[in-house]
């Protein structure tokens, strides 16, 4: 004992740790024997020091453990074996393999599509300029018609941007931006005339916004009033090349900013939500002398100092407008610019969501599709377990550890996930153009390594999720019981399997009901009686010479045979309708001062042209000279004012210089805004200052008639391109988001349901196979096919029904919150849920039936004879 202890322990530990295991006994033995010899020959002290020395000399490559361990070869064999077994099981159970592959690859494709879309949405307006991170925009809200109205475009009183930095030390600097996207001027060079949108920006703009300038210095453009920068597309269209555009003089036709400018820059528009073709210095806008507090429309962009707490800053500026106007209830809110795109809806002056809702919605749907596919995989592997239980048993007997088996099952699911990724990539690449068409984007799959990493990550997670249950469940069997076939698998796996099937069908039912309701709502919007006719009406800008002198043109137009009516108006239907307040009438209350009236000012025939129904009084007529100060109210306005006999009464103005207006008629409400808005108080009045022509064309001869209008237009208005739109297209455009959901939800729902059904199909067929003998015996004892089918279908139908019942309340809540966004919406009738539920039951039932009927008609003697 004593001797043993005298062997130095540290070197011994080192030997054991570092030397190759198979040499260890010999080496240790030799060292020990030699140590004993040395103790006898010299003394303990010396023997110990020799031992130390020898230990160090043992550290030679030939004796040390190899990097990566000695069992390397063994591991490789195992891996090869796993791969082989996986492929064999794929080949052997082709049906389940194909269903899994189809499910996982379409699930993955769905996720990949949505990932690309979400990533693109998240990157919009995220810039990497020096000060982009500190960039906030001031959002202005003010009370009107009893609610708090927020200007979502970020328009603020014009002097705000320059006043705030003087009063708040948190602000590093500020700059103004004025977008002019709603009205397009015409830019001319030589005989090329193109319509263009423009933007005015102040100094500081390029410290937060990117400016991809192909030619010219972006900073100096913002200083110089007489020079502009134009987009690459515009430069190529006007001058055939970006280089030739530089230094050229161009002529802009526009009411306020017309004139000739020098092109001193050409830029590439980037990934921003605000597109524009021409960039001006804000100094040019200042020339108009619209810099009073009551002038609005300029965006106030601030760059905060490093480390400023935005919430504290917001608390300070919230009621700033009360310093400008006494008792002002206006609210200001500084929102980080990068969040504006996704969080662009406001309530009480504070952001409450926006596009982020769709981003979340589709992420969740895609995730569910993938989960449904993963569930199929889990269910199949546990259901198949009896077939592979012997394999597991034998492996364990030979000496496989549980971890080996876990690796095996994970390996198998991972392999399938990778195969699915390949197919998913093929799907994504081939359907990307269609997807881009639906979403209105230009997504591409190959651009960056972020996408590659994300795709691989998603695939690996898919493999792990699918594999986790089989891996943990199947690897846990005791080998003896597994080999004897004593295991009652079903008691354990059945509960989980059942819950998973319920989950799948709950999701599928939610999707089916949602598709029905979304479709109904969108259909409702499309076909709803808007109160005006939007078909066969074309609209185009009223500009140039025609701006003032348009009557001869309209007279000529009306002579064209295919034209029914022609007129002009200010604004654009639906949505771009201006409003004003400050009216007074008999019996008005104090709060009514702020009542906002929307209005369309235009030509005599406008009410008729739009097919709006008159309830009372008359429409405008050239016979009454007084009609230039007359108005026609809508029903909502009449209700708001509270007059019993409105026709003939007068509406005054708080401004004494404005003449009173006589009410000559009342029209029925029509939807001049999107259906997400209630119909607001409104009136028509006469004006020659419209900015759009409206022309109603006889149905069936649109093409020829429009061609004639075009010829006429070009005669009358040289130098302006004729670009028309159908009013109906305008209307459709504002529902682009809803249409997108209809189409996408339909696709996703179909995929999810098909995957679920395939899963159900395979599960039924599997569970029936195990009961072949039972069926045969029941048949012998006198059961008929009908009874057998019922018996076999019952279990699964029950699961489907439970799933559907769970789905109903959830889908009800989801859809109600979606419909809440629409002021005019369908009611959530029970029919939708019943139809959706019955549809789901029906297809599930047919699926199950296809399997049960087959096995209810089996050959009894054959089934009993085989020992399967």
């Amino acid at each position, binding site marked *: 004992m004593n001797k*043993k202890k005298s062997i130095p322990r540290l070197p011994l530990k080192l030997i054991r740790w570092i030397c190759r295991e198979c040499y260890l006994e*010999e080496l*240790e033995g030799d060292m*020990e*024997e030699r140590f*004993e010899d040395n103790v006898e020959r010299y003394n303990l002290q010396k023997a110990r020091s020799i031992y130390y020395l020898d230990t160090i*000399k*043992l550290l030679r490559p030939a004796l040390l453990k190899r990097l990566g361990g000695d069992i390397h070869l063994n591991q490789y064999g195992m891996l090869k074996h796993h791969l082989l077994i996986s492929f064999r099981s794929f080949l052997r159970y082709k049906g389940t393999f194909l269903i899994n592959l189809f499910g996982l690859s379409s699930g993955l494709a769905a996720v990949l599509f949505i990932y690309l879309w979400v990533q693109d949405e998240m990157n919009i307006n995220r810039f990497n300029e020096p000060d982009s991170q500190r960039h906030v925009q001031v959002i202005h809200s003010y009370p009107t018609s009893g609610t708090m109205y927020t200007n979502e475009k970020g328009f603020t009183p014009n002097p705000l941007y320059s006043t705030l930095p003087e009063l708040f030390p948190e602000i590093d600097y500020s700059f103004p931006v004025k977008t002019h996207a709603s009205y397009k001027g015409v830019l001319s060079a030589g005989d090329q005339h193109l319509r263009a949108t423009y933007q005015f920006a102040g100094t500081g703009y390029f410290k937060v916004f990117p400016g991809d300038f192909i030619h010219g210095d972006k900073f100096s453009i913002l200083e110089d009033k007489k020079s502009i920068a134009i987009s690459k597309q515009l430069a190529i269209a006007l001058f055939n090349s970006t280089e030739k555009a530089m230094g050229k003089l161009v002529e802009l036709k526009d009411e306020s900013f017309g004139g000739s400018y020098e092109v001193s820059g050409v830029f590439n528009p980037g990934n921003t939500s605000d597109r524009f073709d021409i960039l001006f210095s804000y100094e040019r806008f200042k020339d108009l002398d619209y810099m009073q507090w009551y002038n609005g429309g300029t965006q106030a962009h601030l760059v905060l100092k490093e480390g400023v707490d935005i919430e504290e800053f917001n608390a300070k500026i919230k009621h700033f407008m009360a310093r400008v106007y006494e008792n002002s209830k206006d609210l200001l809110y500084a929102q980080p610019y990068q969040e504006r795109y996704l969080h662009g809806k406001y309530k009480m002056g504070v952001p409450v969501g926006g596009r982020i809702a769709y981003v979340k919605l589709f992420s969740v749907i895609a995730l569910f599709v993938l989960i449904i596919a993963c569930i199929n995989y889990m269910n199949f592997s546990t259901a198949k377990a009896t077939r592979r239980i012997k394999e597991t048993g034998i492996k364990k007997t030979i000496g496989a550890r549980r971890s080996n088996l876990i690796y095996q099952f994970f390996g198998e699911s991972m392999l399938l996930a990778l195969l699915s990724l390949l197919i998913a990539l093929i799907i994504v690449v081939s359907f990307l153009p269609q997807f881009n068409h639906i979403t209105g984007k230009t997504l591409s799959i190959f651009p960056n390594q972020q996408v590659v990493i994300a795709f691989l990550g998603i695939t690996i997670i898919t493999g792990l999720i699918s594999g986790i249950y089989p891996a943990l469940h199947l690897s846990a069997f005791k080998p003896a019981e597994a080999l004897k076939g004593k295991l009652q698998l079903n008691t354990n796996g059945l509960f989980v399997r059942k819950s998973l099937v319920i989950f799948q069908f709950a999701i599928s039912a939610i999707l089916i009901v949602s598709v029905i309701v979304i479709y109904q709502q969108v259909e409702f919007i499309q076909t709803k009686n808007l109160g005006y006719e939007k078909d066969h009406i074309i609209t185009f800008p009223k500009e140039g010479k025609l701006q003032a002198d348009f009557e001869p043109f309209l007279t000529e137009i009306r002579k064209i045979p295919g034209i029914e009516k022609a007129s002009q108006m200010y604004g654009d239907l639906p949505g771009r309708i201006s409003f004003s307040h400050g009216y007074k009438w008999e019996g008005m209350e104090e709060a009514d001062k702020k009542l906002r009236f929307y209005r369309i000012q235009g030509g005599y025939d406008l009410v008729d042209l739009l097919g709006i129904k008159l309830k009372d009084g008359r429409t405008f007529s050239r016979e009454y000279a007084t009609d230039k100060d007359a108005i026609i109210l809508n029903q909502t306005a009449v209700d708001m004012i509270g007059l019993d006999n409105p026709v003939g009464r007068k509406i005054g103005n708080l401004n004494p210089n404005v003449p009173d207006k006589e009410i000559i008629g009342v029209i029925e409400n029509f939807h001049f805004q999107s259906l997400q808005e209630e119909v607001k108080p409104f009136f028509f009045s006469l004006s020659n200052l419209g900015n759009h022509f409206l022309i109603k064309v006889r149905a069936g001869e649109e093409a020829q008639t429009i061609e004639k209008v075009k010829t006429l237009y070009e005669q009358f208005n040289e130098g302006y391109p004729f670009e028309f739109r159908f009013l109906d297209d305008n209307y459709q455009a504002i529902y682009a988001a809803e249409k997108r959901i209809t189409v996408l939800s339909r696709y996703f729902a179909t995929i999810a349901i098909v995957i679920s059904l395939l899963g159900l199909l395979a599960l039924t067929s599997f569970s029936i196979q195990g009961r072949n003998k039972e069926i045969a015996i029941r048949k012998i004892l006198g059961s008929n096919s009908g009874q057998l089918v019922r018996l076999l279908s019952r279990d699964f139908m029950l699961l489907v029904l439970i799933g559907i019942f769970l789905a109903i309340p959830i889908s009800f809540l989801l859809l109600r919150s979606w419909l809440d966004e629409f002021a005019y919406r369908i009611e959530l009738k029970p029919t939708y849920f019943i139809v959706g539920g019955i549809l789901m039951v029906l297809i599930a039932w047919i699926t199950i039936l296809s399997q049960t009927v087959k096995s209810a008609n089996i050959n009894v003697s054959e089934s009993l004879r085989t020992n399967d």
Partner: protein
Amino acid sequence: MKKNRLGEFQELILMTVIVLQDEAYGNEIQRELEERLDERLSVGAIQTALKRMEEKGFLTSEWGESTQKRGGKRKRIYSATPYAHEVLHHMKNIRSRLWMAMPNPGTT
């Protein structure tokens, strides 16, 4: 004979293994050689040479008895393969031919 050439030290150990016969295990080889060379050797040097030669096919080995002195660990007994004998002879021939070819065979 290009491949699997024996180093000088390896050759010495190989010959010692043959000399020691059934007693040819690590420590015994070491003792024998230390005595003959009159020089202290390390376990590592001996073992490395043994393992290398086993890998190259000059030696085979099997477990032997265990002793108290070894803390109950078994010895590993090495023996030379016929191939080793062949190589040894071959090298001896080369040497003696070289000796004979030398002009003034001196003695030490």
